[in-house]
């Protein structure tokens, strides 16, 4: 029901592929020529570290970095791009799988996807990863792009008092008005919040209450929460292709770790606020560290065996991304800055960005042992930082909404960027490219080399100045008359006129001795 594999490709893509399909032998991806070249001059193209593989401004992909994932879904060594697409205006959620520039499959989703993740469920061959999509209170798991399993979050325990009240209502032992009063009392004080049913009941007019109670009294009250974020955590091996658990963050301020095979809750941790971004390192069975950026602007760091956060980073702004680079937690804040923190929450550095950060992700170049953080900005730039140092700036024509870097097709280092208008950009890192510090901007700000915008003086001004010098005394008479009666010009001639002694502010024309 929730998955209907679509066999046909979108028509406009087929057309374009037929029209001009170009084969890049070295890249291993069938790529059509980009319909529109980037606004980059040929010279910068040559010196750039990136090859422009594909740009489709009308790809119609609206998503977040959390819903982008690169994975070898079929186990054939050809990596696909999985997109949990919100659809235009968040109206038509879809699961899209892209191969090269083309959409391989597209299927509607029952609700908006909050996060997508690929993970290995079990050890046996073929080791094809499963795809998990978190949406509402459920995680939908796919294998080989076929629906495999649906996990729903366990129901939250209802408030016992509330339950009791509805029980009484069911047996008609309580009238609606008393019920309302009692429920309001619970809402004022209780630790456990009321269910949606009770809250709705509290809003009703007295005339509607009776009908509402009759309609709903037979139902048991339920409290359901939703998933806000999801990530994966290796179960017991650090290998790249080791079995991983899913880690879920929920709206009721909890973190859940799921068993990869049985989908039981292995561990539950609670947070002081609702998690928005998660970053995990380590293995579940050995030792792990979990960083959760939360809605209250704090980042909480937990470890195995800690039910509550060990450390807390107060950002005094909203985090917009959380990435771990080696041992440093890099956090982007909505005050346009990137911060680096240790795992104990000590601030290491801060870098200011030229525009609002919209999304962040990790860039990992294994062959060179490089890990860096990518930040997608509202001005269309993707900035790549290793700690404080700016390594590279990739410019795109629109605000960057999601980012992903990794193996795509058969190409190891591919950058996937989606833009606010729904565009899709695929860039390939040249194999010869080496990131060096200062590769971005360095040295004095460019404004320093700009000419000062100085008001120019005209010929007329010069003439007037000369005239004032010639006839300053005469022309100023009426002016100084304001302050004193004019005096006949009986002073000595200019030759002998006394220029007073000079001090710094007095420009002496003739510091001749006054004697």
């Amino acid at each position, binding site marked *: 029901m929730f998955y209907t594999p679509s066999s046909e490709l979108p028509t406009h893509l087929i057309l374009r592929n037929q029209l001009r399909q170009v084969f890049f032998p070295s890249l291993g991806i069938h790529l059509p020529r980009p319909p529109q070249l980037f606004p980059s001059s040929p010279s910068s193209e040559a010196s750039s570290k990136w090859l422009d593989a594909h740009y489709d401004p009308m790809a119609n992909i609206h998503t977040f970095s959390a819903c982008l994932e690169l994975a070898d879904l079929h186990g054939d060594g050809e990596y696909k791009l999985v997109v949990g697409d919100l659809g235009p205006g968040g109206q038509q959620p879809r699961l899209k799988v892209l191969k090269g520039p083309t959409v391989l499959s597209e299927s509607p989703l029952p609700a908006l996807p909050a996060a997508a993740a690929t993970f290995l469920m079990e050890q046996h061959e073929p080791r094809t990863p499963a795809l998990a999509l978190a949406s509402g209170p459920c995680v939908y798991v796919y294998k080989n792009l076929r629906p495999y399993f649906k996990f729903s979050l366990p129901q939250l325990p209802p408030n016992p008092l509330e339950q009791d009240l509805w029980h009484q209502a069911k047996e008609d032992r309580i009238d609606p008005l008393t019920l309302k009063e009692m429920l309001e009392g619970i809402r004022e004080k209780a630790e456990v919040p009321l269910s949606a049913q009770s809250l709705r009941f509290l*809003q009703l007019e007295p005339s509607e209450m009776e009908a509402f109670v009759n309609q709903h009294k037979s139902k048991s009250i339920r409290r359901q929460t939703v998933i806000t974020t999801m990530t994966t955590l290796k179960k017991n091996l650090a290998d790249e292709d080791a079995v991983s658990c899913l880690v879920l963050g929920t709206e009721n301020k909890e973190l859940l770790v799921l068993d990869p095979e049985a989908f039981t809750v292995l561990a539950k941790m609670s947070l002081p606020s609702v998690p928005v971004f998660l970053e995990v390192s380590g293995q579940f069975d050995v030792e792990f560290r979990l960083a959760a950026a939360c809605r209250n602007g704090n980042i909480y760091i937990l470890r195995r065996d800690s039910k509550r956060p060990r450390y807390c980073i107060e950002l*005094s702004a909203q985090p917009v991304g959380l990435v771990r680079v080696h041992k440093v937690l890099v956090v982007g804040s909505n005050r346009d800055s990137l911060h680096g923190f240790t795992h104990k929450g000590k601030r290491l550095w*801060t870098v200011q960005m030229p525009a609002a950060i919209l999304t962040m992700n990790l860039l990992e170049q294994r062959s060179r042992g490089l890990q860096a953080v990518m930040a997608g900005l509202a001005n269309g730039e993707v900035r790549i930082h290793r700690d404080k140092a700016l390594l590279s700036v990739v410019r795109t024509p629109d605000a960057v909404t999601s980012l992903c870097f990794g193996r795509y097709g058969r190409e190891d280092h591919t950058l996937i960027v989606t833009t606010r208008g729904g565009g899709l950009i695929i860039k390939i890192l040249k194999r010869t490219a080496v990131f060096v510090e200062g590769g971005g901007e360095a040295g004095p700000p460019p*404004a*320093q080399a700009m000419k000062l915008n*100085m008001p120019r003086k005209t010929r007329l001004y010069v003439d007037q*100045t*000369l005239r004032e010098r010639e006839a300053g005394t005469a022309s100023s008479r009426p002016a100084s008359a304001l302050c004193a009666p004019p005096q006949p010009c009986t002073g000595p001639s200019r030759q002998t006129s006394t220029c007073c002694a000079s001090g710094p502010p*007095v420009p002496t024309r*003739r510091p001749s001795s006054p004697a």
Partner: protein
Amino acid sequence: MAEQRLVTRTQFPASAESLKPRLKKAPEFPILEKQNWLIHLHYIRKDYEACKDVIKEQLQETQGLCEYAIYVQALIFRLEGNIQESLELFQTCAVLSPQSADNLKQVARSLFLLGKHKAATEVYNEAAKLNQKDWEICHNLGVCYIYLKQLDKAQDQLHNALHLNRHDLTYIMLGKIHLLEGDLDKAIEIYKKAVEFSPENTELLTTLGLLYLQLGIYQKAFEHLGNALTYDPTNYKAILAAGSMMQTHGDFDVALTKYRVVACAVPESPPLWNNIGMCFFGKKKYVAAISCLKRANYLAPFDWKILYNLGLVHLTMQQYASAFHFLSAAINFQPKMGELYMLLAVALTNLEDTENARRAYTEAVRLDKCNPLVNLNYAVLLYNQGEERGALAQYQEMEKKVNLLKDSSSLEFDPEMVEMAQKLGAALQVGEALVWTKPVKDPKSKQRTTSTSKAASFQQPLGSNQALGQAMSSAAAYRKLPSGAGGTSQLTRPPSLPLEPEPTVEAQPTEASAQIREK
């Protein structure tokens, strides 16, 4: 667990059924928080339009019960400036979940922004009961108390906030309190701690630098301003302050290169154009100087420092009539400064209005306490008028001031001034040569002389932190202008018409920026 297994192990057909709850008799209630995550993501990405759409949808679906949607809507209202609406919505949130300190904090914040500081403190105190250990509550309470002029309480709260969790903002507010109390040393102490805590915060570095500048500790001031510029080479305040210090030392080219950055970022800043003008003055590009100063004057017509500088430059240009106008305008805004009257007197003397010049000198001498130049100029005028006794009195007054200055600081005097004084002394047949014990060796060092000798007298009471930057920069700029004039006073001849449109201005940038890069 078994029940959960049941739920979780249900395969898709079953889940498909659960996806159509509307078919049942009693409608299922939508999960209230269903799209909170999406609202939040849109909000932090500043995509407010999309955010509002989701909020609207969510509120429609839940009939206004979704607290977080209302909360974010209120935040957006506040960002858009509709503070009253935001306040009402936050109050709705507080009704929906009365136990949440966060809602109360936001209510208080909106009250604060509406200027209802008293009410805000009450709500914050309420929130503090729900959450004891929140630095934000303490900090904001402190800020409210500042506005209520209860500085002691404010300090307490801010120290509490620092105790709970250290934040740059709290340090800044504490420093502000000390500045409001006029306690520079304490303020510096706080800012020092703050810089220790976050050594890369350019605002803290700049403020600390400016405070040192105000106290005349130039080495440290320059150090901190330089640090600020390392982290943020486009910091407006730091550039202006550092530039003015460079100007004081005669590094006009370097200062100009720095100003170019600011000119791009804040092209309508009066202190900036004033400083640029005085840079050109120092470089003897008088037309350029006048252009820039006139722009500064256009941008801030009531700033007497700019008028002072304009008067000075016009005196140098021998446009005494114009100089007279600018100086008398400056005096209108700043009637308490001896130097201004002296300059006015010089202009009047050159306009051959000796009577008024004398009056101006009298006023100058009355107001000035430490600048020997005022008395010297007056003495010369009196001497030229044939009033040797008056001249002698002024000359002795000058000697007193010179001796005072010599004692208080190891300054050197402008050689031209010394020379003139000696000549006058000889003419008045006064025993001489004792006063000027330090002959000037290096013509460059003289530039510092007069500027620093004046520095002490022109400290202005500086109020808020923001004003401080501006005031300091222009004060510093002003302070150095005598040095510029000192440069011009070397001219023994009328400046050879520097009136041709200046071609050299464009030539400098490259060499100057080269200098910077070498640094």
